[in-house]
């Protein structure tokens, strides 16, 4: 059992570092494509963590929808606009001077607050058995059916938006 624990911890830390690194490279890479790739890294790492927590379905969705669909869409757009290396303009004084420190401060505060909060400490045993896909699906189609149906309209809106915004002017 103990070794399992250590193994899980090890995996967690590997994936966590991976995710953080990915995030950092998202920040410091200058070419959008690299950004996209590093984001994908983050997502895959997260998917791994989900698996580690035993949320297979979410992990799968993460890979398929996020990694697959959304990021592909990103890459596609990047190609479409053949976006080049990002230019480091510094028009915004505020962002240039105070932006990073403030954001980091926010980060630090969030992390610290969560770390110090007692609730998150009462971490129950992780057991992959709970919250299986079947349960999720039943919830989705029973109590959450209304929002679920609404999302369909939401996607309709998205399509509509894509048409309205991106279609080339005929006239």
């Amino acid at each position, binding site marked *: 059992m103990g070794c399992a624990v250590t193994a899980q911890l090890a995996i967690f830390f590997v994936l966590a570092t991976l995710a953080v690194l990915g995030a950092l490279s998202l920040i410091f890479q200058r070419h959008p494509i690299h950004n996209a790739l590093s984001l994908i890294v983050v997502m895959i790492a997260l998917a791994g963590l989900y698996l580690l927590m035993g949320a297979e379905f979410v992990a799968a969705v993460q890979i398929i929808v996020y990694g697959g669909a959304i990021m592909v869409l990103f890459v596609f757009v990047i190609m479409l606009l053949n976006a080049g290396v990002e230019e480091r303009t510094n028009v915004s004084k505020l962002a240039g001077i105070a932006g990073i420190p403030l954001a980091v401060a926010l980060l630090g505060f969030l992390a610290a607050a969560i770390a110090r909060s007692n*609730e998150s400490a009462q971490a129950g045993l992780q057991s992959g058995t709970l919250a299986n896909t079947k349960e999720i699906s039943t919830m989705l189609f029973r109590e959450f059916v209304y929002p679920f149906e609404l*999302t369909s309209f939401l996607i309709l809106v998205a399509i509509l938006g894509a048409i309205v915004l991106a279609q080339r002017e005929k006239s």
Partner: protein
Amino acid sequence: MPAFPNTSDLLRVLPELIWCGFGALLMLLQPLVKSRQVLTTVAVIGALGGIVGNFYAVHNPGAAFGGLVAADPFSIFFSHLVGLVAVLVILGADSYLRREGLADAEFYALVLFATAGMGVLASAQELLTAFIGLEMSSISSYILAGYRRDALKSGESSMKYFLLGSFATAFFLYGIALVYGVTGTTNLLKMDSAEPTSTLLKLGLALILIGLGFKVAAAPFQIWTPDVYEGAPTPVTALFSAGPKAAAFALLLRIFADVHAATQFWFWAFWILAALTMFAGNLGALLQTNVKRLLAYSSIAHAGYILVAFAAVTTLAKDPEIGAGPAYAAILFYLLTYALVKVGAFTIVSQYGGAGEKHLQFDDFAGLGERQPWVAALLSLFLLSLLGLPVTAGFLGKFYIFKVAVDSHLIWLAVLMAVNSIVGAYYYVRLIVVMYMREPSAELAATVPARFPLSVNVVLAITAFGTIFLGLFPSKTLNYLLQANLLNR
């Protein structure tokens, strides 16, 4: 837990369903029907239908879908409000879209979807539903903001709105996540159990407040408002200023009503937000020369006034004698009057702006009082209502906010609000001065005043009438808003 949503559930969310349905219907009709009148009529019918759809909920209010949404007087009021706004916006937009040569089916569809989203948001008792509703309205808004594709400003406003909006949404979501972590639920009704000392709850509520504060344009999150409002097509601006804001406020109120902890944590936040917002809006508006932008700033200021009432809610809720009821009433009444006035004003602006929204500078309004007396009179009426002068609805709205502020002994906040009203008076009066007391430039005087189409006149008639009527006989509305079971408990 019902096996499948029974009819009462569906009937209670009928308005949203109708709006969505008509939205979809419009998209289906769009390729088939060429006539704009038909599409407009359908859209209007849809919007009205949503309002009519409340009939069931009115007579037997209650929760639907096992407490995901509530159809109580509160949400009914809001679905009336947003429905009304939708009707007015659609009516007002028709001629605008013709003039700008923009497709209308999509526009109406988006408006209806956005309306539906707001309806959901206002009636949500479950943060998940609220989130979906929020996104529905937001995403439609992003698109609408950029609806004048070829106009740089429109695209820019759309982009800014989108980026910052989703940024804020992320905060909102994270807040939900934390709250969920503490309480183990996302259902507002079930959250009372949470012990209000918990750090995570505080943090979560803080983040939720940030997310919603962005939607209602509370300083310093108001920063996006002027740009987006100015860039968006004017009818859309009208929608923005009235609808999403109201819905977001509605959600905040629900959180107040249900999450006990919120009333404890949020007081000073609201105090400060209110003060900042009022000043940001009014001072920022002082030097504006673009009417549309001026109105945008003024809407920030008004959000500030409403936030004053929120600060009052936090204290009145604790006061056993009075209770938060009057504060709720004040807020809702204000939202109603404010929506009417803003939609009216923006409709005039959208008409007067002319093709490509060229005539939005103060100088373009010079001598309006002589060239188009009725338009000038109406616009002045709306401005005076915004400024809060008696016999206009705006006055009573402001009056009740003052009242609850004083009742909850927020004297100094009330005084700050008073000071702000003076500052506000300055720029509203300035616009009136321009309209009545400046001579128009030669070429402006030469231009024949464009006659407003019927639909627009209808909108103006409704808004103007509402402004006066609510200013003189608000009792029925207020009694409705003051009823004990406003939130159905």
